[in-house]
């Protein structure tokens, strides 16, 4: 049997199996999921050959399955993250009911993503896209009434995206006579010369998944309401499907179009870049006023996707490379962070940062993961996150003329330090309160995937070349020639470099020297004191006195940036919704239910006909 069909078949049978097993032994539902994904990952990385194509026809339509170098990047991302998330999920979801529902949708959504990666034609692409959307929607409303509103929002925006995409696909068939993606690109479907609406429609479809600015409002709620083990994939991998599509469209615009500086290409670059930049800024400033850790991470996901889109919009070698690198790194650290939030939720019962603090000594491994991921998120050297940020800035400064976009991005990334710190401080630092005394470290099966992700971040900080290799090959598929990369040296077009190996070596040496010095020096005279032993003007804090500063953490910043907080996309959409409702309400009034009124309408219609008789019926 063909390997592609086999993988899809395993996924679907895994989904059914986990549903059935839940009826018999709920414990094994999660393990079934893990095994399914593990088997698929094993098959994928051993059996699938890059650039092999399988053809078949369904209802007279030519369809193709295959993996190319570009989608291979996303395959690594999806399968790797899903494997770890499903391992995490076993213990995380343990005490919930309706596990069969959850796990079968869990597998289906991954099947959808893998299917998207396999698709070489638009029809199967769209089918798998919808499988992914629907299964993820079903997981968002897993919590029932509590999350139905967020689910509805997600569904509406996904529907907008899907219809836009479908329109584009049908138009491609109509105008270029093909459903095969690569043929459509060869024929110049995305060139912005004629049929401009085709790429725009497709971009709208992808932008919904990638949570780009006007279409992002579903993301914060949907991300924070679904179970954390799924959100790790939802935010980490599923949003990257939007990036996959956008990359495909944009790269073919930039690398296949005859005139790279054509007016509409420039416009596209500007609009997309600025939309990405504004997404990043707005999501960041909303992230830093959240008090729920999950919501904070959800907003931060939207912001990070903004950076990725900015990188894609530059269309230059370094920019696209930065975007793809950030896409992978974002999947890693945001996956890890959502797992951290999940672990905290399971062990403590809440992720409200005003309620918990001081978990660092209770959950050291979770803290380690959170710390490493946050450093990567903030883009502070020497971890993988810095590599992506560095390339993004260099691409913007050296290769694109969007100098003010640099400032917007930089503002967002500096403000990101604020919510990064807020997350760490809110959950792990601060007073060790009595309420959290019982808390223990999360189970081993939850710790392992988190720590693996943290280690990946550290390794990619020293040797980003590990990721550059597949990315460079993928970019060659997209039409960029001579993509240079080095194991640990980043170079921009002006020839300046950042040598990660050197940087890490320096930091490591200094760290070891200073750490040993500071630890050994006066070791006997150094003692550990609890967090209640603080200088509070001689006052002795009582056991239950809460001394942690958590509420309105960035109030001064909120005051300073008050104009930015006035506008919210959520509000605009709501206003639009209300306006539409008013119009529909008015329209509804025509149908009064009274026979007399209807008779009046008929008479009015006849009168109008009679008046315009001569113009309407000239013969």
């Amino acid at each position: 049997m063909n390997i592609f069909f086999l993988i899809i078949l395993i996924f679907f049978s895994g989904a059914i199996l986990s549903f059935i097993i839940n009826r018999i032994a709920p414990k094994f539902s999660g393990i079934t999921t893990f095994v399914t994904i593990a088997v698929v990952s094993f098959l994928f990385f051993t059996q699938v050959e890059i650039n092999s194509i399988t053809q078949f026809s369904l209802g007279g339509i030519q369809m193709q399955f295959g993996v190319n170098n570009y989608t291979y990047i996303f395959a690594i991302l999806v399968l790797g993250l899903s494997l770890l998330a499903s391992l995490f999920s076993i213990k995380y979801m343990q005490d919930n009911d309706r596990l069969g529902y959850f796990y079968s949708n869990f597998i289906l959504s991954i099947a959808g993503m893998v299917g998207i990666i396999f698709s070489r034609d638009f029809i199967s692409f769209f089918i798998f896209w919808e499988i992914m959307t629907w299964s993820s929607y079903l997981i968002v409303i897993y919590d029932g009434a509590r999350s139905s509103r967020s689910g509805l929002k997600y569904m509406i925006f996904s529907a907008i995206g899907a219809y836009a995409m479908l329109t584009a696909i049908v138009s491609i068939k109509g105008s270029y006579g093909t459903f095969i993606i690569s043929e459509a690109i060869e024929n110049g479907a995305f060139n912005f010369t004629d049929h401009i609406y085709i790429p725009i429609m497709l971009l709208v479809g992808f932008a919904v998944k990638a949570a780009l600015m006007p279409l992002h409002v579903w993301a914060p709620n949907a991300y924070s309401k679904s179970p954390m083990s799924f959100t790790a994939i939802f935010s980490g991998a599923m949003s990257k499907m939007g990036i996959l599509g956008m990359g495909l469209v944009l790269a073919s615009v930039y690398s296949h179009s005859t005139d790279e500086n054509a007016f509409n290409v420039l416009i596209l670059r500007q609009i997309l870049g600025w939309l990405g930049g504004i997404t990043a800024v707005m999501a960041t400033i909303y992230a830093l006023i959240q008090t729920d850790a999950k919501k904070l991470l959800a907003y931060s996901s939207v912001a990070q996707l903004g950076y990725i889109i900015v990188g894609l919009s530059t269309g230059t070698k370094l920019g696209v490379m930065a975007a793809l690198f950030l896409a992978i790194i974002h999947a890693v650290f945001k996956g890890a962070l959502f797992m951290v939030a999940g672990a905290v939720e399971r062990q403590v019962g809440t992720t409200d940062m005003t309620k918990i603090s001081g978990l660092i000594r209770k959950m050291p491994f979770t803290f380690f993961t959170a710390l490493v991921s946050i450093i990567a998120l903030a883009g502070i050297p020497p971890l993988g996150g810095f590599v992506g940020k560095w390339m993004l800035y260099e691409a913007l400064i050296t290769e694109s003329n969007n100098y003010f976009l640099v400032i917007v991005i930089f503002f967002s990334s500096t403000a990101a330090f604020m919510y990064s710190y807020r997350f760490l401080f809110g959950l792990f630092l601060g007073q060790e309160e009595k309420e959290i005394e019982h808390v223990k470290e999360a189970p081993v099966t939850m710790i392992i995937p988190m720590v693996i992700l943290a280690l990946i971040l550290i390794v990619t900080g020293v040797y980003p070349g590990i990721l550059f290799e597949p990315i460079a090959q993928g970019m060659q598929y997209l039409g960029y020639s001579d993509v240079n990369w080095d194991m640990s040296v980043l170079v921009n077009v002006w020839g300046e470099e950042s040598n990660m190996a050197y940087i890490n070596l320096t930091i490591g040496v200094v760290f070891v020297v200073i750490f040993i010095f500071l630890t050994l020096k006066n070791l006997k005279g150094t003692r550990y004191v609890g967090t209640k032993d603080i200088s509070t003007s001689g006052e002795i804090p009582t056991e239950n006195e809460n001394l942690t500063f958590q509420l309105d953490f960035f109030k001064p910043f909120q005051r300073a940036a008050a104009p930015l907080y006035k506008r919210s996309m959520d509000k605009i959409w709501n206003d639009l919704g209300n306006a539409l409702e008013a119009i529909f309400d008015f329209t509804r009034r025509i149908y009064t239910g009274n026979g007399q009124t209807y008779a009046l309408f008929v008479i009015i219609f006849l009168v109008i006909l009679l008046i315009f008789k001569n113009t309407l019926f000239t013969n």
Partner: protein
Amino acid sequence: MEDLGLKIFGAILTTILGFTVGMTYGGIVRKLTARVQNRYGPPFYQNFLDLLKLQVKKTNIAHGFMGHMAPVWIIIAAVTVLLFIPILNGNLWFPNMSFHGDLIFLLYMMVFGSLGMALGAGQSGNPNSAIGVSRGLSQMVGFEIPFVLSLVALMIQYETTSVQELTQIQHETGVWNAISNPFAFLAALFASLGMFRYSPFDIVGAPAELASGPVSEFGGKYLGTMMSGGAIFAFIKLTLYVHLFLGGAGNPDNTGIIATLLGLGVLLIKTFTLYMVPVFYGWINPRYRTEQAIQYFWRWPTALGIIGVIWAVYS
């Protein structure tokens, strides 16, 4: 192998230089402040005595692992950044590795120390520390905007992102960047007010208000190590500014002993003059509130920075 030994020796030399100069400058500022206030003031080496005393304290307390690590992070950031900026242009005595890390790297690396400090302060559980950190991070968002604007202006004006290159260009043309792009320099100068945290931007430590803010739970060797890190950081920022805007120091064509000393002298004069800007500004100003401080940077300094970028594009 010899090369490596020389480099390590040079790295230690650089660290000692940065530390000494930073500490001395701090002492001189204390002395000058005293004289401005019509006092006699402490000796200029007072900071060294303070540091020595803190290091020979007999007992210390830590509030946990992050509290223990906070000074380590600061020193890591300080020394790493110090090694990645050119102390003297093209001088082999100081092994600058700025070829291996450019301005963007330096910008981000400088935050590393602050983050570590914030984490250490957070773990102490003192509400004052947390408030201090919140203020510090907010203020950073304020002054980074004009600072980055001015850096972007320089980068696009000379098409390089390396500090070494920028210094070299100024050395070759003989025109300081402060003159070739005055708006960027002014924006950066305003940003430096926030960076050095003298009044009116001393909202983080905020004596008599927050009980020294983030460091309120640190004493003994921890406080001492933090002080050293802060001193090195002061030297770093000044040196960076001198190399970016004020023509740099040192002559790459002549690296003899006398030329090196001369270069160091020039560096000291320039850095000291620059250091006096935030200090002078601080003497005559009370403290801002946090939102005022943020908005201060988002008004004129940012406008100047934007003009600087436009200037750089059209020159």
